């Protein structure tokens, strides 16, 4: 299998890049792929705690690119899943501690040993972003169904295209189908019409994400989590399986059924 370097980005902060990276990486590893998660959010590292690996960090990405340690020493092996690794960000430096050129070399070195190299990008469009996309073959753009998030996603897609990444795919995160149904949230079609890029998947708003982040266990490990199920589907799609994008929905509540009946009566 040819290895792929995929950057997970969004422009706007806090829309779910790190959550998406952790869950897709874990899910791919559960399907026996060799996966490394690279945290490029230098100064604000988080992927380690979301993965529950924070206590095992010795070296970080800056140590690796500066030759303070070997690449193998910087990688943390996840004991839960064969083949899953994390390269943590540095916490005490800033985004200029590494360069796009170094990032490119790093991802190329990682290609030797991994099927998927998932790069968790920091928010913003400055050097942290440029570092994160430097070695990428493809990009996953994460957006929430809100005006500001979709607007930033549009800007990011433009910047990715300018950098030669023309096949970005969209993950819509934190969709609330109840709000969509009552006309108070943009739906997937609205967002796709506006951004005109391919849809990779839709992840519902789900309290399980908070619980799993508390525990340091990605939601894909929890079979009952709806967000986890959505991420597992996305991972299968990344493996080339053709499965329909949206198949989750909240159970219809009484109010919605009542509304439907009224609609039919009109």
């Amino acid at each position, binding site marked *: 299998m040819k290895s792929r370097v995929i950057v997970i980005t969004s422009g706007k902060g806090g829309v779910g890049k790190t959550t998406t990276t952790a869950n897709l990486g874990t899910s791919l590893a559960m399907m026996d792929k060799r996966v490394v998660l690279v945290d490029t959010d230098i100064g604000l590292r988080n992927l380690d705690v979301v993965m529950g690996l924070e206590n095992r960090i010795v070296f970080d990405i800056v140590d690796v690119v500066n030759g303070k340690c070997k690449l193998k020493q910087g990688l943390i092996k996840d004991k839960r899943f064969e083949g899953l690794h994390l390269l943590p960000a540095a916490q005490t430096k800033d985004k200029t501690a590494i360069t796009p050129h170094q990032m490119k070399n790093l991802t190329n070195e990682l290609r030797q040993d991994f099927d998927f190299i998932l790069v968790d990008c920091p928010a913003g469009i400055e050097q942290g972003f440029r570092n994160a996309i430097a070695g990428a073959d493809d990009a996953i753009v994460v957006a929430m169904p809100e005006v500001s998030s979709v607007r930033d996603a549009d800007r990011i897609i433009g910047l990715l295209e300018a950098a030669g990444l023309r096949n970005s795919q969209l993950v819509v995160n934190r969709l609330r189908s109840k709000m969509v149904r009552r*006309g108070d949230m943009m739906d997937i079609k609205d967002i796709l019409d506006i951004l005109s890029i391919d849809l990779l998947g839709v992840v519902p708003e789900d309290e399980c994400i908070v619980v799993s982040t508390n525990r340091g266990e990605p939601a894909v490990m929890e079979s009952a989590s709806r967000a986890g199920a959505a991420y597992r589907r996305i991972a299968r799609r990344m493996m080339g399986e053709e499965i329909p994008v949206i198949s989750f929905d909240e159970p219809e509540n009484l109010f919605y059924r*009542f509304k439907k009946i009224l*609609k039919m009566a009109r």
Partner: protein
Amino acid sequence: MDIINRLLGRENAGSRDIARERLRLVLIHDRASVSPNFLNALKEELIRVIREYMEIDEESIIVDLENEDNSVALVANIPIRGFKRAANE
């Protein structure tokens, strides 16, 4: 009123349509201003075409996007110095 609209399933009672419309408008501006070349290139091209028909004040041409009520317009202000005399057939 709101609750009645919702009960009857009139979707436009919600804020979704507003969001979609605002996003559409803001992205027209964003996309145009992100490439600073876009308006300049357009301006150059306009000058080239119009010069064929009339004498214009090329220095004081203004080409810009302007917000109308719920649309964005391309507004060009092109001062005319004079018309070329139509050639006698």
